[in-house]
């Protein structure tokens, strides 16, 4: 039995890697990659080879995706097209449409399809928010006190709501939802990785949040397994252990600049207006209270553990960017 797999968000790093891994899998006959923008060219922008993946340029917000799904007898859908930061040209409204309306269109098309048997959705551990009133370690069934109210995390929470609705309406389809910690690794380019490469790291005075990372190799492996095996449910995905922000800064050999939180917010807003950084109130809360998730459900279901711990994933990222602690580094 061979399958056709649809992967959304293939023009970005992890999406492209997942598509190319799936294209190489023996029991997958066809991989169709879709995205709103074409993939970066291999030679010029350091893009990832998509292998046998066929690329179709589709604006997820339009109903065109339904035609792609109907035309190709799709068996598995891997939905990776969640944008974590507004682009400089488009802004927040477009980002929200892309994330939420895009998911609704995709799920609508899946619901009509008679061939779709498995849906894998990339979500984020940001749906738990960051709060001083919530437990230190989140399990999948936990209802946070202060859920996300802004930006990416709110989009992800809404997307999860639609995915749960879809799972109720189509109980015959296996739905796996993956709440990833922040991606980390040589190829990852996210607001957080850009933050750590700044010469000075602004931090919130008096707070030292716990951060968790998942290495890109592990993220790709989890997505591959979820796309080729049936594991219904919601799972946290993160490398073992946590790093404190102060620890990250020391390992990166970066000076931190503690600012009182009003000053931090003002600086963040100013830098956003100048187009220097992506910044949202969610990030301030993460940089105050941090977040850690429990991954035992994933490990029990897959019988597998992420290869990289949070610390190892961060060290691999530092190596790739040539960052060292003060005074040389470990041997």
């Amino acid at each position, binding site marked *: 039995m061979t399958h056709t797999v649809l992967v959304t968000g293939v023009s970005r790093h992890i999406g492209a890697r997942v598509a190319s891994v799936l294209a190489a899998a023996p029991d997958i006959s066809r991989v169709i990659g879709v995205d709103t923008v074409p993939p970066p060219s291999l030679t010029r922008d350091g893009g990832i080879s998509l292998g046998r993946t066929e690329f179709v340029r589709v604006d997820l917000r339009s109903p065109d995706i339904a035609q792609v799904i109907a035309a190709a007898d799709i068996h598995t859908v891997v939905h990776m097209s969640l944008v974590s930061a507004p682009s400089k040209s488009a802004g927040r409204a477009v980002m929200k449409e892309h994330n939420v309306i895009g998911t609704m269109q995709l799920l609508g098309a899946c619901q009509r399809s008679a061939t779709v048997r498995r849906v894998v959705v990339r979500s984020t551990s940001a749906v738990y928010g960051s709060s*001083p*009133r*919530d*437990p*230190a*370690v989140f*399990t999948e069934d*936990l209802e946070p006190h202060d859920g996300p109210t802004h930006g990416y995390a709110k989009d992800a929470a809404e997307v999860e709501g639609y995915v749960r609705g879809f799972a109720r309406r189509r109980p015959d389809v296996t739905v796996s939802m993956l709440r990833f910690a922040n991606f980390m690794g040589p190829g990852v380019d996210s607001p957080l990785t850009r933050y750590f490469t700044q010469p000075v790291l602004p931090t*919130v*005075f*008096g*707070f*030292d949040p*716990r951060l968790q990372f998942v290495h890109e190799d592990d993220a790709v492996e989890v997505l591959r397994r979820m796309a080729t095996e049936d594991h219904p449910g919601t799972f946290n995905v993160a490398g073992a*252990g*946590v*790093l*404190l922000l*102060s*620890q*990250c*800064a*020391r*390992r990166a050999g970066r000076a931190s600049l503690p600012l009182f*939180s009003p000053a931090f917010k003002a600086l963040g807003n100013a830098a956003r207006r100048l187009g220097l950084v992506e910044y949202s109130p969610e990030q301030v809360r993460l940089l105050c*209270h*941090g977040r*850690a998730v*429990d991954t035992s459900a994933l490990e029990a279901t897959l019988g597998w553990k992420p290869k990289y711990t949070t*610390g190892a994933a961060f060290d691999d990222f530092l190596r790739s960017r040539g960052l060292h*602690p*003060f*005074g040389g*580094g*470990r041997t």
Partner: protein
Amino acid sequence: MSVAEQEGRVIPISAAPSYSEEPDRLARMLAFLRRRIEGDYEVDEFGYDPELTDKVVLELIRPLYAEWFRVETVELKNVPDEGGALVVANHSGTLPLDALMLQLALHDEAGRPLRLLGADLVYQLPVLSHLARKTGHTLACREDADRLMRKGELVGVFPEGYKGVGKPFSERYKLQRFGRGGFVASAIRAGVPIVPTAIVGAEEIYPKIGDLKSLARLLGLPYLPITPFFPLLGPLGLVPLPSKWMIEFGEPIRTDEYDPSAADDPMVVFNLTDHVREVIQQMLNELRLRRGHAFPPFL
């Protein structure tokens, strides 16, 4: 051997008593600094940094423990050497120094890190919130309590909360109400023993004789105390009075005889909570008599 010969004798420097220790200590110190500067240390998922706690935070309060309060521990053998357990203690002193002293007593004398469950106010405040996490403590909530006990940690609670730590001096050594008994339910779920603990001495460090209620409300604090020296003497009034302390650990109360589902039975939980409370009150009364006067050298 004449005196002159003795003086002329060459003593190898490595034979000097201080020689072998000094480079070691220096090397250890440098290695410690290197690890701290390079971020090469581990914290657990709650943010507990054992090295920082032992080498810096507890080191700073050790003189207070040994010299100022002259803390004496009683029946330390009642604290299990390993595995999960729940230490339940009385809370007093206006500022929660009793939490620090209890942690230090268990860390240094029983060799066990104490993981306290604290009020959410602590985790909203800058500085305090991350110091609390780095020294091993977390928010008092069911999930964190269950998780720590399942991992076999020694968890500590002060069930009286603010009612205990902020009570007036006239109420000293009278246990306040014990919340909703959530700590007992957690112990039953995890099947870990409850170690009733009495702390005598903390009541006298800042005798609270008044409360600036409206100012406290304005600042979002549970209370703002007036003591004989604060705010009268300003920052000097924050020096705790050097009372004599004793900490007694009682016979562990087993919870593994209950079915874990008993944690959802309010009658079982209330009865066990009352029992723990009575045991601690009894211990407090006896230990207070045994200690005698709070300020022995002066009176």
